[in-house]
């Protein structure tokens, strides 16, 4: 604890000094989900150009507020700007730029997938989580009770999932049989069961835990793949955004261009997310 605290104080001091000495330093602040990708890219960008980039965590909301109040050049957000936030700073214009994508995939035990349940509609998933349907045979699977796995209410993954399925990120899931926390915990529970459904980040799918395709209202079937996530066709996609104001500095714009370029996109991928451009 103490050494890491000391280390971070040292880094903070060093960063402050660097910020003072370099006139065109760029400050970036906000979502800790977006941070790993941006901070890796920032390190490399600084090494290549000599322009220092200071990246701080503080949550999506915090990042937006700091940007709006002029305390940072670029905000990071793992969600879109809300109407309430825009209303607070109505005199300003903001741009949201997606630098990467993260997808939440409804996932099921491989036993059910192999038995033929490979795609569901959103309302069918909603039926499972609200407790209206409790057997896989209703969806053409084996006659086995559905084991629905929910996540803690605060998890970003759950909020995206429930927003798409139930229309409300905080919706109650009366049909849930188990509640887990991290992707890791959820994946373990899905693997241990042979009739479970849950929600995972795209990167966590494997042979034991299969991603469901989604059947849209017009009958179109969307598979969870890098392509459909990149194009945004897959319904459970969230953008990892950087946000700027109209009066963004040239230096900040150059850094955003770098994030969207091949090297920046590689960092996005290294951090476990999906690139937005080739």
């Amino acid at each position, binding site marked *: 604890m103490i050494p890491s605290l000391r280390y971070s104080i040292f880094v903070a001091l060093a960063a402050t000094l660097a910020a003072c000495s370099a006139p065109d330093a760029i400050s970036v602040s906000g979502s800790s989900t977006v941070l790993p990708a941006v901070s890796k890219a920032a390190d490399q960008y600084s090494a290549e150009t000599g322009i220092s980039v200071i990246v701080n965590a503080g949550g999506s909301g915090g990042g937006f507020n700091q940007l709006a109040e002029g305390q940072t050049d670029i905000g990071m957000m793992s969600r879109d700007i809300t109407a309430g936030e825009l209303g607070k700073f109505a005199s300003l214009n903001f741009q949201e730029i997606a630098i990467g994508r993260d997808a939440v995939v409804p996932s099921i035990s491989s036993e059910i997938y192999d038995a033929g349940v490979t795609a569901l509609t959103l309302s069918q998933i909603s039926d499972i989580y609200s407790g209206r349907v409790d057997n896989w045979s209703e969806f053409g699977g084996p006659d086995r*009770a559905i*084991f629905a796995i*929910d996540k*803690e*209410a*605060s998890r970003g993954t759950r909020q995206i999932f429930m927003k798409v399925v139930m229309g409300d990120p*905080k919706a*109650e899931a009366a049909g*849930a*049989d*188990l*509640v*887990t*926390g991290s992707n890791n915990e959820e994946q373990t*529970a899905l693997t*241990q*069961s*042979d*009739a*479970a459904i849950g929600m995972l980040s795209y990167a966590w799918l494997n042979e034991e835990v299969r991603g469901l395709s989604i059947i849209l209202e017009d009958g179109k079937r969307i598979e969870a793949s890098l392509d459909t996530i990149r194009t945004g066709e897959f319904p459970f996609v969230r953008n990892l955004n950087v946000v700027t104001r109209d009066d963004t500095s040239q230096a900040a714009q150059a850094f955003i261009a770098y994030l969207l370029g091949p090297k920046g996109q590689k960092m996005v991928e290294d951090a476990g997310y999906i690139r937005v451009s080739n």
Partner: protein
Amino acid sequence: MSVITLNPPSSRKYRFSGTQAYCFASAALSILIVGTILLTLLVQSGPILLTGNADIIGTKWNPSDGKFGILPMLFGSVFVMSIAVSIAFPVGLMAAVYIAETRSSKLRRVLKSTLEILAGIPSIVYGLIGVTYLNIWIADLFDLQSGRIILTAGILLGIMILPTFLTLTEDAISAVPVKYRENAKSLGLYRHEVFLSIILPKAKSGIAGAGLLALGRALGETMAVMLVIGSLDRLPSPLLNPLSSGQTITSKLGREVTESAFGSPHFSALVFMGLLLVLITIFLTIASRYLFRQKDQHV
């Protein structure tokens, strides 16, 4: 000269009052800390208790809807504790009788020190074992989709409180003076008669005290329970079904307290559950004190 060295009443008196003040301050400080904790819990519980529509004695928990029903958590705590106790008490009592009555000091020493090691293992280690093995065994045994259920938490907790209960119970039995045992034997009683009609009644209150202390530990345990109970904020259905996932007060606090904004109704409801837990623990502590004291008077 010798008079002065032998009789320094003033300095001795001075030192005594210094020590006294120090002791008094220490005692006052610990009382102050307990008082502060209780007061803080009470004050922070205020908002949720004063809100009329929070539905605190309800079964629904959904902070975004303003629903803070604590019954599932309260029931979960009591249910898990009951399972733990019904596993630990019979086993612990029998083992304690065995250790105490074989009257082998070597066996007693080896077993007691092993038990003390067991009692000292951090609960997260038990939790990890529960997640890695116990939870899978139970799922296989009952053919369940997941072993993260109330029964698993109860069994794990039973294993955890067993050493505490066993060693204190054994102390209580061994503490019965030898003279009782010898008198009874000299009257020609069989060994089981000596134990059942002489030793057990004498050790009874000590055993009950041990049980209450173990109960307190079971009630307060967080980490191990949190990992295996399934974290479902709902009453089991049917109510006494130990094979469904559940939630205890402690696991709820462990999962959610960092996510609730300080001063919000959500935070207040969590604090209120903490207050309930403290009150139950205080009750158990006082009750066990009372039982231990009774034992001292009899022997």
